[in-house]
Structures are given as C-alpha cells and as structure tokens.
C-alpha cells in the first residue's frame, strides 16, 4: 500500500466536545496503516496537550496518557503553534509530551507538503 502524508489538524479544546478524542482514534488507525502521520495543534487545540488532566468529576475518559503512547506507534511529529500557546498563557513545559513549537508560517508550509489534511 502506498504511503501518504497525513496531517491531523487539531483546533478544538478537549472535553467540551468529543472531537479531540475521536480525532486521536483516527490518528492511531492512520499509524496502523503505516502512513506518514503528523499532528498539528492550533488555536484551542493546544489545550488538548496541557498536562495534569483529571476527569474524575466530569466522569469522562481522560486521554492524556495516549499522547505518551503515540511514540510506540512511531508518531513523533507533533507541531504546536507558538502564537496559540502564548495567547493562552502556556509554554512547551506545560504540555504532556515533547513537541516542536513552530510559527504560523512554518505550520503553513508543512500543511502545503501534505497529501491529506484531516481537521477536527
């Protein structure tokens, strides 16, 4: 099977809606198909990566641990928009996994290089 460049563009906050979680399920399947997978986090999507999620009181599954497990699936390209982080008072140290912090223009360039963009 041919290998394509799939980028998952995550722009929504976690828990308020299910998009972040169901997107992650697609990411894992794309990896299982041995595609060239990358994730990019923009706008409120950067909140997905904030560490220290405790979802006990909202009785919803937390998915923080899944970020750490991505490496086991050879998914290592996680890009985060610097401006979105800064606007929300976050730095890379606040995030649950190592990421590459990029400018909007750099993210734009990466998008242009993709074959398939799946946005959530």
């Amino acid at each position: 099977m041919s290998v394509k460049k799939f980028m998952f563009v995550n722009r929504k906050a976690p828990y308020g809606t299910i998009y972040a979680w169901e997107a992650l399920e697609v990411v894992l399947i794309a990896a299982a198909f041995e595609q060239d997978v990358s994730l990019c986090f923009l706008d409120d999507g950067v909140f997905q990566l904030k560490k220290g999620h405790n979802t006990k009181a909202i009785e919803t599954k937390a998915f923080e641990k899944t970020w750490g497990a991505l490496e086991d699936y050879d998914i290592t390209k996680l890009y985060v928009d610097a401006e979105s982080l800064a606007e929300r008072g976050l730095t890379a140290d606040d995030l649950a996994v190592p990421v590459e912090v990029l400018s909007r223009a750099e993210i734009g360039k990466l998008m242009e290089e993709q074959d398939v963009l799946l946005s959530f």
Partner: protein
Amino acid sequence: MLHIINKSPYERPALDSALKTGEGAILLIEDGVYAAVKGGAAEAKIKAAQGKFKVYALQADLEARGMIDRVTEGVTVVDYGGFVDLVAEYKTNQSWL
C-alpha cells in the same frame, strides 16, 4: 442575574457578549472555564469584569482540563452543588450558547 458561559473565550464571543450586556454573576463551565485561567489573554477580561460581576468557575471542568491550580485571583471555584445554589440564588439565568 446569572450568566452561564460554556464557550472558550478564545473561540467564541459568548463571554464578551455577556460582559457587554449584563451584570450580576458569571458562571464559567465546560470550555468556558479557560476564561478563569491566569496567564492567558482572558485574564485581563475577567479582572476588568470583576467590578461589575461576581465570577465563578466549575471545579470539575477546571480539573478535567488541568487548570485547577492556575485560577485567576478573585474567581470563586464551585462544584455542581454550588452551580445549583447559584441558579437558586439568582431569579433569572441565561446560558450564552
């Protein structure tokens, strides 16, 4: 009256719109709790609003998002029971969807 806001201040005008229109109390729930977090662009909005509004944020949603330890000063954290008390306390409430 009680204004209930469940939208992120970075994604929707719900908080801005409520602040411009009303007075009384603001309760931040679901993705709305990001407005109660310090360090971000929303902090200044909440601080400016505190003259006119009492500001509350839902504990469960702050915890879920890993933000319970960085709540802006002056914001009162409430549990679901506190949510119920606020609705009972104010004669009218509005959800800014």
